[in-house]
């Protein structure tokens, strides 16, 4: 087993604990790093924090993103065209760390990490100030090398569960996930439409039976109303495509961060009005 006893409290864990004490839910905002440029990403992260985001997920663009729908695919293409790479994203994170302590999680397809090397990635990510990493095409079965590299000093490895996951997989994945557990709300790709919140509630309840790690729900959360509904069920609400779509629409607007900030503020306000019982 992995020994984590001497690790200082991670920003992700601290944030979920702080929110839990206030009986609030975490708003997790996803951006594609480098869309439309890394400079804009820096401005967006700071603005989204002001707008009420509790945690930021930074997508690492990949040429062949199999888990993503068209909105995030196009954002990845824009980010790659602007010269974005994992190395440059880590520099951006370093720069951000002089200005914010918001938890930062990378969402990276496995090949971008493998190309840098699992050990080098973990070392550089932690040094830059990355708190966690989500690898959408890496189930726990294939996580060995990255898990070993991350065991000592981080970042936290966050795994995903889906509506198709079997009870045995729920237990196994929940045991391995650190920081929080990412529940994929629907059988599909990012940006699809969330229709069955009742099904999400049932599955989150089943996950809670096997773990105390906070559960965040993503895929298909697009509106303030969706965010409010999911906030009643989960510890965190992840909004990706809906934010990325706003960025795509306002990419040439000098007031891009303000536009996106306004949207994120509406999500957070909707979640505030929810006072849900904690588990």
């Amino acid at each position, binding site marked *: 087993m992995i020994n984590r006893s001497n690790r200082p409290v991670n920003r992700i864990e601290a944030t979920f604990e702080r929110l839990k004490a206030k009986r609030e839910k975490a708003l997790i905002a996803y951006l594609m790093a480098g869309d439309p440029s890394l400079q804009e990403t820096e401005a967006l992260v700071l603005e989204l924090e002001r707008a009420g985001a509790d945690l930021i997920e930074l997508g690492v663009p990949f040429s062949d993103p199999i888990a993503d729908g068209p909105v995030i695919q196009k954002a990845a293409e824009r980010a*790659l065209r602007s010269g974005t790479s994992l190395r440059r994203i880590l520099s951006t994170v370093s720069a951000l760390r002089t200005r914010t302590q918001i938890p930062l999680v990378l969402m990276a397809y496995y090949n971008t990490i493998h190309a840098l090397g699992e050990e080098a990635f973990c070392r550089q990510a932690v040094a830059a100030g990355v708190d966690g990493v989500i690898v959408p095409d890496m*189930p726990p079965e294939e996580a060995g090398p990255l898990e070993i590299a991350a065991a000592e000093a981080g970042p936290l490895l966050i795994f995903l569960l*889906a509506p198709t996951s079997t009870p045995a997989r729920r237990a196994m994945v929940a045991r391995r996930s650190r920081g929080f557990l990412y529940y994929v709300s629907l059988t*599909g790709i990012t940006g699809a439409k969330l229709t069955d919140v009742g099904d999400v509630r049932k599955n989150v309840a089943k996950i809670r039976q096997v773990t105390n790690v906070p559960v965040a729900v993503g895929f298909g959360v697009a509106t303030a109303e969706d965010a409010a509904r999911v906030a009643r069920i989960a510890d965190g609400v992840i909004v990706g495509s809906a934010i990325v779509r706003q960025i795509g629409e306002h990419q040439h607007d000098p007031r891009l961060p303000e536009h996106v900030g306004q949207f994120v503020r509406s999500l957070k306000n909707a979640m505030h009005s929810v006072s849900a019982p904690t588990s």
Partner: protein
Amino acid sequence: MTTLPDKHGRFGPFGGRYVPETLMPALIELEQAYLKARGDRRFQAELNAYLARYVGRPTPLYFAERLTRRLGGAKIYLKREDLCHTGAHKINNTMGQGLLTRRMKKQRVIAETGAGQHGVAVATVAALFGLTCEIYMGTEDMQRQALNVFRMRLLGATVTGVEAGSRTLKDAISEAMRDWTTNVRTTHYILGSVLGAHPYPMMIRDFQAVIGRETRRQILAAESRLPDYLVACVGGGSNSIGLFYPFLADRKVKMIGVEAAGLGIESGKHAARFAGGRPGVLHGTMTYLLQDDDGQINLTHSVSAGLDYAAVGPEHSYYHEANRVQYTSATDEEALAAFDLLSSEEGIIPALESAHAIAEVVKLAPRLAKRQVIVVNLSGRGDKDVQHVARIKGVSL
């Protein structure tokens, strides 16, 4: 060597299952269903009956006497997969997976296609078994292979163009995986080559190994000995692994896999993964890939759509590192010359994919003694490529 992959779907360091969690239960279910079918004599008997009466197996092993004389060296045999129903080896796999789909009680199949041969083979078994069928194809490939697009539609399939990325096979696979992720409960994804997450590379190899099993019997009957060389083209690598697999334990049988060198390795416009790539993960498997320093997948080029892909089957990566198979490459120009040569010398128009294997034989045979034997897999026929080649030659039809 022949007991691979291990229970994690690994061929040494290669293979595995790098897919979103949503697909993991389906892959495990597929593995269980396949292993059960593999051990079931009724399934095998049913598959063999379709292969014999519908596909037209066994395919001949033909001694290419004029080509042999022309090249002046080793005896050249052609394994005539081009004579399979639908014109290529692809149907060996789609027939197996089609029967498996019925067993799993799924009503819909999806697939990707590059040259269109796999798409046609999937649409064919979907028609045969009454399954709904959707084929994803890059719009660039739809142009190159317009005839196969029409064939798939005739067979009742929906052909969906993919506009993303390079608009070729790579993007068609990504889109098929997205469809599968969304419709996994009702749909089986009939992957076309020994690629993707476990159990696909193992299962597709097993379905294609009929090529090598027949070849072994046929060459022993013809020559009373095993061949010195086996030669096949390698895109994803299903026709080559199908030929090689039953000979792996025969250490004296040398094997050559031929990749697409496109405009030449040095031009950067090619699909030679072993010459220009390094290990990484694409579409669910760890294998040799054409990628840049940051792990972004490179665009590839080949005159042949079926070889135009940035990754190679993980089992090939294993044989490459184990030095069991030698991987070479042939340029567009060499393949086109071989296409002409086989057409005029033997009266057989090869698929442009298979022409890459012939191009290797053109280099290899003259260096060998007359008593030596080469078997080359003629994986498909060239009818689908005739218009494309005419365009290249500047001939208007």
